[in-house]
């Protein structure tokens, strides 16, 4: 019983809070609930949860503020809950240190998948070791050591930049990466460019990896936010 993972849910709406709690408890997580930012912060310092679900619209303080405060003392995974149609808010939260976001309304499966992904990535980062050596999903295999990408057993030729992009996404599979983050990782922190070059490269990758670029199977677009690779 003691090895149950604790999840702190900071959400002011009762019904959504209980809904999340029900899902999490029935999936063997321990749940702490906070109805506002202050309680959330104090629960976070006193109980050291494994992961935080943070609603951005809180009654007492801005969700972004809560995010910043937590980041001052902890590196624990934070998943932001936000309403659709506010891409800017999502991007700000992700670039401000959130690990992922989930859009209201969401289903149980989606929520659990996000939590598993966040926990898994944090585990790897915590051990300070290299990620897996191979990404393998359905027909696609990426061998990070040999820098080799194969689809249905056939080697796919990717340019230098394309390979960097695909491997970055694959190493963070399941997690959304923002345009800014990807640009900085691939082209360096001082690269002065808009995300058009990124989108052109992604279009080329899509034509090499996907059967139908309009129905991607491996790399998904989150318009206005970034990209997410199939986990």
């Amino acid at each position, binding site marked *: 019983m003691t090895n149950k993972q604790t999840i702190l849910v900071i959400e002011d709406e009762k019904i959504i809070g209980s809904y999340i709690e029900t899902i999490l408890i029935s999936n063997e997580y321990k749940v702490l609930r906070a109805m506002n930012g202050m309680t959330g912060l104090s629960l976070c310092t006193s109980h050291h949860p494994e992961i935080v679900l943070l609603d951005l619209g809180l009654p007492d303080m801005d969700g972004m503020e809560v995010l910043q405060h937590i980041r001052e003392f902890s590196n624990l995974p934070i998943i932001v809950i936000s309403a*659709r*149609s506010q*891409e800017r808010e999502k991007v700000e939260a992700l670039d401000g240190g959130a690990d992922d976001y989930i859009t209201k*309304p969401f289903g149980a499966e989606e929520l659990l998948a996000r939590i598993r992904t966040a926990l898994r990535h944090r585990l790897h980062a915590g051990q300070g070791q290299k990620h897996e050596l191979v990404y393998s999903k359905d027909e696609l295999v990426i061998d990070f050591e040999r820098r080799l990408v194969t689809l249905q057993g056939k080697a796919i030729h990717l340019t230098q930049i394309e390979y960097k992009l695909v491997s970055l996404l694959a190493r963070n599979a399941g997690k959304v990466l923002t345009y800014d983050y990807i640009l900085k990782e691939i082209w360096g922190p001082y690269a002065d460019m*808009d*995300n*058009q070059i990124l*989108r*052109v490269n*992604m*279009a*080329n990758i*899509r*034509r090499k990896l996907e059967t*139908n*670029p*309009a*129905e*991607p199977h491996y790399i*998904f*677009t*989150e*318009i*206005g936010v970034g990209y997410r690779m199939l986990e």
Partner: protein
Amino acid sequence: MQKKEAMSRKALLMNIVITIGIFVIATMLAIAFFHYSRNSTSVAIIYILAVMLVARYTNGYVPGVVASFLGVICVNYVFTYPFMRLNFSIDGYPITFVAMTLISGLTSMLTTQSKKQNQILNEQEKFLMEAEKETMRANLLRAVSHDLRTPLTGIIGMADAYLADSGRLTEEEKSYMVKGISEDANWLLNMVENLLSVTRIRVGETRVNTSLESLEEVVSEAVQRLRKRLPQARVQVQVPEEFLMVPMDAMLIEQVIINLLENGVYHSGAEKIDLYVVKKDKEAVFRIRDYGKGITPERLEAIFDGGGTEENPSGDSHRGMGIGLSICKTIVNAHEGTIWANNWEQGAEFVFTLPLREDTGDDK
């Protein structure tokens, strides 16, 4: 009130400044002219011109009338013998002065009047546009309340039945009811998202904020979201081989695609639906084809005008896509594109176009 007073004081000051400015220039011109020709008639004409200009660039009758008197006095005082003195009794001159006063007074009045008329016309036009918008809003509201009430009735009814159950409902019946609630709630969510997209347009007043978006990414996200909502739908998608960037508000265009696909799935009765996007000249053309009965000619005409109350053939009244389609039209028009519906060999077809612009500068 205070604001209005301040405004009028400012306007008065502006009028005085303009009048004096034009008169100084006219006098300088007149002096130069007079110096060469000694002809006071041409001088009078210069002043008449000045009066017209004053009437044109000031507000109200007063400046023009004042200017005409000022002009007459100037001509008499400066440019007719005896110089630098007022004298209206010289032979023939009284008539000249009276004529000049009349001409300048009349022109000033005419100019002011035509200005006023223009203003009235502008106001009327604005009023008409407002009225049209008001009608649109009212129609939308009516359609919305109809489309919202139906699923809400279902949700409330089923929830009540579930709660009032005294153990007679079977598990199967219960799960059927909850499934119904979930379906209707999803329908409501779609409706709310549609309404939200309308507010996005209203803020910007008929035009939308566009940025260059990758066409295939928008299409794929739209299809993905539709699949989540209607897992049974079999959507076939095709985008151009060429990578296209299209200026648009991605969220709104996504909404259009989803509405049209969903509309096709519900109305055709068939779950198969196609979405083709092609580049044609300077436009991206989106075609959504279903495999149903098609649309009757009577319905084709007003299909985008928000006829949400019309019963559709399948008898499934709350699936009337009235609002959805009229919102599609609003969105596409705001992008300066076109949208229309027609029938093809195997069913109905909805087509919309978006202009591809050359400029690439407005990317974030």
